[in-house]
Every structure is written in structure tokens, then in C-alpha cells.
């Protein structure tokens, strides 16, 4: 590996400075501010604040609504991760069998990933629209009246569907390159050792995909937890009241709609801790377990 070395500290500090300033101003400072304000009860009209200690946190855990949102977020994350990973895996396995030059195919699929979450949300609104959305009409054929934004579970289903759809491509791409990096000869050796294609998949292919799958698992959890904000906003816009929402969306709703800055800060702090735990877990596992070469 090529290493550059610097004689004095001056130049590297100058080179790093913009990055450090950006991280400091846009991440650490607001984070510190959030931690601070999570211990205060903020006057809604901005006339000062009172120190309340852990009250904001206690309030959250005691709030049935917060618990409900947390449970929904958990379920939402689980379903989106599960469906987007498993559908992408099935697609990738099928694709791996037939394609050699995967370029065009990959690019085509990547377009879906390039759709920003809010746009995906609007597309979702269009597809599930109450009046004449194609999906709504399709479900109506089976006698089901799909009511986006009105029925809690219908809205939740639409959210899961849109988020899953939005995230399948990236999973597919990673799974496909994972599959294609398994040496052909290893698959062939397995063909001689085991006649069942299904068993070969679970014994050989899947374990060799495990590093990819684990990486994607973390990516997907993070996506479902944090990156779906825009999509949810598009789907529930106007009446967040009775609709399902994720923890991240609730931070926004409580802080900006409800003007409860203290409670909303406490929620962000909880989310920050969650990210921290997730990251530590990821590095632990990555270091410890899954690599073979």
C-alpha cells in the first residue's frame, strides 16, 4: 500500500478541516443540542425552558402512543427487511442462472433505487390512491376496499409495499454480485457432491452469501428505520393523526407539529443510541465471524 507522510501537522489539519467543520456543525453540535434539550421542557412559544431531568424520557415510555409507534416501527422494519431481502435474493438467484452480461439488467434495476423515497411515496400514493389507483382497483376486484390514509392497516401495508419495492434493487445488485463471485468450480464441486439443488443452495451458496446478506441486513434495517421518512410523509401527508408512522417520523410530528421540542429531542436521542448499538453490533459481527478468505 502506498502511504503518504507529512512532516508537520499543519497541512493535514488544513486538509481535514472542512470535513471536521462539517461534521462538527451539522452533526455533533445538533446532537449535543438534542441531548441537552431532551432534559428540558421547552416553552412552545420559545419563552425559555425548564430543566426537568429524565421526565421527557419517562413520559415517552409511559405514553401508549409512543409504544404503539415503536411497535409499528419494529414490525415495519422487520417486514420491509424480510421482504426486500428475500424477494431480492430469489430474483438474484434466478438472474444468476440465466445472465452472464448483467450490465443492462443491473442498470435497469438500479433505476428503481435511484427513485428518491419521497418520490417513491408519491408513486405509492398514485398506485394505492383511493379513487382510481391501479392497486386499489385491482384489490377491489377481490371485493376488498383499500383505503389509503383512512384505514390504519391499509396504510401500513402500502408503506411496507412501497418501502420494499424501493429497496429491492439495491439488495438485488448486492446479492447478484455476491452470487457471481462464488467460483463456478465450487458450485460444480457441489454438484458432484450433492444432487439436490435446494440442498446445495442452503449448504454452499447461502453460507457463501452470508457476508453479503449480513451487510444488507444492516443496510435494510437502517433504511427502514431512517430513510423512509420522505416516503411516509408522502403517504400520510395531511392527517398523520390516526395513521401508522415510524419513530423517525414521530420525532418530526411531535417536534414540528406538536411543538414538543423536549419530548422530540428525547426521541432523537433514543434513535441515536439505537444507531450506535446497530453500528457496534455490525462491526463486532463483521470482525468476528463472517469472512472466509
Amino acid at each position, binding site marked *: 500500500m502506498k502511504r503518504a507522510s507529512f512532516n508537520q501537522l499543519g497541512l493535514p489539519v488544513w486538509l481535514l478541516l472542512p470535513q471536521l467543520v462539517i461534521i462538527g456543525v451539522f452533526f455533533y453540535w445538533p446532537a449535543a443540542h438534542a441531548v441537552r434539550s431532551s432534559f428540558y421542557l421547552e416553552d412552545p412559544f420559545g419563552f425559555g425552558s425548564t430543566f426537568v431531568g429524565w421526565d421527557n424520557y419517562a413520559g415517552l415510555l409511559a405514553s401508549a402512543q409512543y409504544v404503539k409507534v415503536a411497535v409499528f416501527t419494529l414490525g415495519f422494519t422487520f417486514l420491509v427487511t424480510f421482504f426486500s431481502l428475500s424477494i431480492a435474493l430469489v430474483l438474484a438467484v434466478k438472474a444468476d442462472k440465466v445472465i452472464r452480461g448483467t450490465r443492462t439488467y443491473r442498470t435497469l434495476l438500479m433505476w428503481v433505487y435511484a427513485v428518491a423515497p419521497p418520490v417513491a411515496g408519491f408513486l405509492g400514493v398514485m398506485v394505492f390512491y383511493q379513487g382510481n389507483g391501479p392497486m386499489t382497483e385491482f384489490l377491489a376486484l377481490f371485493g376488498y376496499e383499500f383505503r389509503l390514509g383512512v384505514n390504519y392497516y391499509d396504510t401500513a401495508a402500502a408503506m411496507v409495499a412501497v418501502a420494499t419495492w424501493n429497496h429491492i434493487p439495491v439488495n438485488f445488485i448486492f446479492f447478484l454480485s455476491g452470487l457471481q463471485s462464488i467460483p463456478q468450480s*465450487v458450485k*460444480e464441486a457441489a454438484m458432484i457432491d450433492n444432487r439436490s439443488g435446494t*440442498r446445495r443452495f442452503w449448504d454452499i451458496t447461502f453460507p457463501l452469501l452470508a457476508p453479503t446478506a449480513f451487510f444488507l441486513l444492516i443496510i435494510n434495517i437502517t433504511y427502514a428505520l431512517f430513510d423512509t421518512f420522505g416516503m411516509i410523509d408522502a403517504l400520510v401527508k395531511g392527517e398523520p393523526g390516526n395513521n401508522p408512522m415510524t419513530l423517525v417520523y414521530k420525532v418530526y410530528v411531535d417536534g414540528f407539529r406538536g411543538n414538543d421540542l423536549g419530548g422530540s429531542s428525547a426521541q432523537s436521542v433514543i434513535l441515536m443510541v439505537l444507531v450506535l448499538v446497530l453500528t457496534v453490533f455490525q462491526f463486532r459481527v463483521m470482525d468476528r465471524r463472517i469472512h472466509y478468505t
Partner: protein
Amino acid sequence: MVHVALKSISKVYPNGVRAVHPTSFDIQQGEFIVLVGPSGCGKSTLLRMIAGLEEITEGELSIAGRVVNDIDPAERDIAMVFQNYALYPHMTVYNNMAYGLRNRGMAKADIDAAVSTAATMLNLTEFLTRRPSQLSGGQRQRVAMGRAIVRNPALFLFDEPLSNLDAKLRGQMRIEIKALQRRLGVTSVYVTHDQVEAMTMADRIIVLNGGRIEQIGTPAEVYHQPASTFVASFMGAPPMNLLPAHYNGNGRVHLSETIHIEAPVSADYSGQVKLGVRPENVGIVDSSHPDALRFDLEFVEELGAGRLLHGKLGDSGLIVHIPHTDPIPGGEVYVGLPKSALVMFNHETGMRL
């Protein structure tokens, strides 16, 4: 007893490449067959068709009397050793060897016994709990061998199994594989482009060129009686000398207007020929010798065990191999081409006359 029979087997890849032209041969029980030929001649394709990893376009393949064209690789009772070993990276050495046995429903105790016997045979006992990534190239090669032998298959298939090893290890493993095959008596097909491996390991060599069989024969036959100029120049380092000459059916070959010698065969043919002679069969002779031919020595290559004399016989290049105990000839050099060591090829077709 015929063990493996190929009847007009051919292969056309989906992209239209005809990798193997209709090919037929039989392999006897316990025989060690080496497929040799230049890169791209279809060796791997042929082997992979026998393994069942590549579909047979046309023809019929039978193993132990059973037509296996449409039988899964796992059901053909074969084991294959791949060039890059193709070990399962996530499994221990033990599991790499045991995997095929488990899938065949063998009892745990029998698997243990089979793996430990193979491991002892291959000096792998201390590595059984390691992953392939924690082994050296030579050890991985042994694991690949172990995975093949634990299965106790009817047929071993090898696709250049030694080409990723360094020269010394390759020489050692070559001997071990051959000894192992002798001991187990398992019919084997071995692909290589290394002619030393081909010569030393084979009971019979099959020389392939452009998807066609050039010659099938024992190493000695292929070496001394090459069926074509292709085989003559492919086998041997340095290859057989091929001297352009003219033959008019009267028992003598004319290397030039003035140089002519007795023909090795009396063929019913007249026209341009190539006269083949192995460098070690050319003798340095006295000028008084009746068949002495004038040799213009150009330079000498030192090989240690011998020397290669490069030069010209008339207008054609000739390489002579002499033992290191012989002196390097000086002054006017004369060579003799012993009739028994000569082979003659049709110039156009390249076939031996």
C-alpha cells in the same frame, strides 16, 4: 474390461463454438488416461462432459456399462479434482471431505473412518479442523485429493490439478497421485498441458488438437511413433526434428539434391515429406561413417544432464542432444540418422507414413 466408453461424443457450445468433434475411445478398468494438448483444444470440455458438468451435444457416454448422458453428476459415481481445488471455503477440511458422503446417507461412524483414512494417507490429520484459507497451496491440493478419494468413486477426473503448484511440489504430487491411483486401482482421466505429467503418469495418452484426437497410445508410442507432425512437435522438449525432404518411393529420402538417406519405411507414396527424428537419437559420427551427414554447428545449449547442439543439416535446422559426458565436437561435425529412429510424415496431411 471396458469401463468408460465414448461413442462419437461431440460438443457444440451455445455460442456455436465446436469445442469437441465427434470423438470415440474406450477406457479400460483401472487405466490412467491422460488428455493432453495445447490450450483451447477441448481437454476440459471432454472431461467435463464425462463428469456431467457439460451437456453432451451428440454421442453416447457410458460408465460401467450404463449410459449416463442424462444422469446427474452426483449420480455418476465420479469424483473430480479441479485446477483451483474448488474447496468449500466455509467448511473445515473435515467437512469438505465429509460433505459428499453425508449427502449419500453414509453413517457418521463410517464417514469418520473414511475421512481419517484419507487424511492419514494424505498427511492431513492435523489440519482437519482448519478452513481452506488457513492452508498452503499444496495442502489445499491434498484436501481436494482427499475429497475425491473418500468417496471411493468408480472414476477419478482431474482437470490440471497440479498447475497451481510450484515446480518442486508439482513433481512430488505427480508421483503421489500416480502411486495413489495405482494403490486404489481407480480408473482415472487426467487433463494436463504439461507433457512431463502426461509422459510420467499415463498408461495411455490421448493427444488432442482443435477438438480432435491426434493420437491415442502409450507414452512410448506417442513419443517414438507420433501419428502426426503435430504430436511429434507437441511432445518432447525440445520437440522432434522435422526435416523437409522428398520421397519418391524408391526407398530413399532426399533431404536435398545431394543429401539422401535410406527411408525408414517403404510407403506407397511419392512427394514432399517431413522426416522426423528425436534430438537424442541423432548421433555424432566420424566423417568416415557411410551415412555421415555434414552438420553446421551454430551454438550449444547447456542443460546440465546433457547438451543441445543447434545447427543446420543442409538448409534445415536440426537439434542434436548429446549426453554431458560426450565432448562438444569441434571442427567439421558429422551426424548419423539411424534408420530405426526415423519417422516419415506426409508433408500435406502431416500424417505418419
